[in-house]
């Protein structure tokens, strides 16, 4: 079937939304709206334009944080993978960053950087960078020794070997890191709005909750999940376009 992947996605969406609807009608809890109630709230937010102004706010730390995390994350990851000394020096920072509970770090951030955009960008980076750096460095270090030797035997310079052998070889895992990291970045953006100062989508979520407008709250949550999913699909398309040989026909798409 040509559109097998698309039809599977459609089918699984229907199943999830159906289950949501049923759970809302049971009801699982008085605070749990049905799927249709949430969707009509989403529609209302869209018509009013509230959701667009909200995203204008949320996208600021999100986009800045994700761009910084992606470029610096991959760059640092490459350096860490290629240099033992740099690895010894830098890796622990990211391992701690990944394991430390964010809720504990946020007050520290507020103390140093205040409650504005800077802190929020930091939160996105703290969520996104570690997994990007660690995946990239791991992938670089795991490059097959055999093809590196092959590159050397055919007179490849260090630069040739990094650009033509190590980087393409590491790219599937680097993209995995990007997907995981950027998803975490989305979470970070919302968290920063819930914990630091309410703006954008985070504001819609906490305000709706405080006035018991649960359909709107779930509508906002749904919208951010949808955005994240769309973005990750875009990333996958980019990966397939850039590295044609990588897709060995294993993935459903």
């Amino acid at each position, binding site marked *: 079937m040509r559109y097998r992947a698309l039809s599977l996605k459609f089918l699984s969406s229907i199943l999830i939304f159906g289950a949501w609807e049923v759970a809302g009608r049971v009801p699982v809890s008085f605070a749990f709206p049905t799927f249709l109630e949430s969707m009509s709230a989403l529609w209302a937010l869209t018509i009013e334009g509230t959701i667009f102004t909200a995203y204008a706010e949320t996208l600021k730390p999100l986009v800045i944080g994700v761009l910084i995390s992606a470029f610096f994350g991959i760059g640092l990851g490459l350096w860490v993978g290629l240099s033992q000394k740099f690895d010894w020096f830098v890796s622990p920072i990211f391992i701690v960053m990944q394991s430390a509970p964010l809720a504990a770090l946020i007050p520290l951030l507020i103390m140093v950087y205040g409650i504005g955009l800077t802190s929020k960008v930091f939160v996105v980076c703290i969520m996104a960078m570690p997994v990007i750096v660690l995946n990239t460095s791991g992938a670089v270090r795991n490059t097959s020794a055999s093809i590196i030797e092959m590159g050397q035997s055919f007179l490849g310079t260090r630069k040739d070997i990094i650009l033509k052998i190590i980087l393409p070889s590491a790219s599937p895992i680097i993209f995995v890191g990007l997907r995981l990291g950027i998803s975490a970045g989305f979470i970070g953006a919302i968290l920063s709005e819930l914990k630091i100062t309410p703006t954008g989508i985070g504001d819609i979520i906490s305000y709706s909750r405080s006035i018991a407008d649960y359909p709107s709250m779930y509508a906002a949550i749904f919208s951010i999940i949808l955005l994240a999913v769309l973005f990750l699909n875009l990333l996958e398309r980019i990966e397939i376009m850039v590295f044609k*040989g990588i897709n060995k026909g294993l993935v459903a798409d």
Partner: protein
Amino acid sequence: MNDKTTSVNAVEVRNVYKNYNEVEALQDLSLDFPKGELTSLLGPSGCGKTTLLKIIAGLIPTTSGEVKINGKKVTGPGPDRAFVFQDFALLPWETVIKNVSFGLELRGVAKSEREAIAEKYIVDVGLAGFEHKFPHQLSGGMRQRVGLARALSVDAEVLLMDEPFSAVDEQTRRKFQEDLLNLVKNENKTFLFVTHSIEEAVYLSDQIALLLPRPSRVSEIIRPSGFRHKDVDSIRRDSEYLDIVDRIWDSLRTYVE
């Protein structure tokens, strides 16, 4: 030593020692590889044959001793040598033609020129039509042919082959051995061939160097003479061939038992 201008030996190995920490892999190994011939390095597993080959390729340094290619000392990889790897060492994300032209690409040859050269060797090794396939779409035998085409395309004088046929099936292996004999006849190159198969070594070689297990040194050099001119199909029934195979097994079996 003597004059470097007309060396009968393409490769000369002199008193090479190689230690990995306390483990002595190669001990005082000296060997000559005559130009234009195929020399096999034959011995049981772990006897340092691949180590020696990589030292000659310039991929590993010696602990002491030297290797000369056409009279020039080896300090690293060079354009005069090309390597064929046991596990093929292909780039999985590139097509066949890009893999074959990779050696030329690293030497800075322009794209249209290197793809034209690569195309010639792709046809020579029998992979015509597969230029735009990826390695995962090829069988093991085909992948090794890509590796061979890549090594041939850089037109090096010395071809170093590290158990190139051990990862393919028996039928393909026999075919490759026949093809290699024809290749040696037609190309004016020196072939260094590592193998652990006695029959393969005797079938292919102008000269066989028997290596002992660690620490490795040359125990014997055999030059099969009688059947080298024979047809590829008749060699395996030649009595000298069978005698040499038995003789080698007798020497080597003591190290395996």
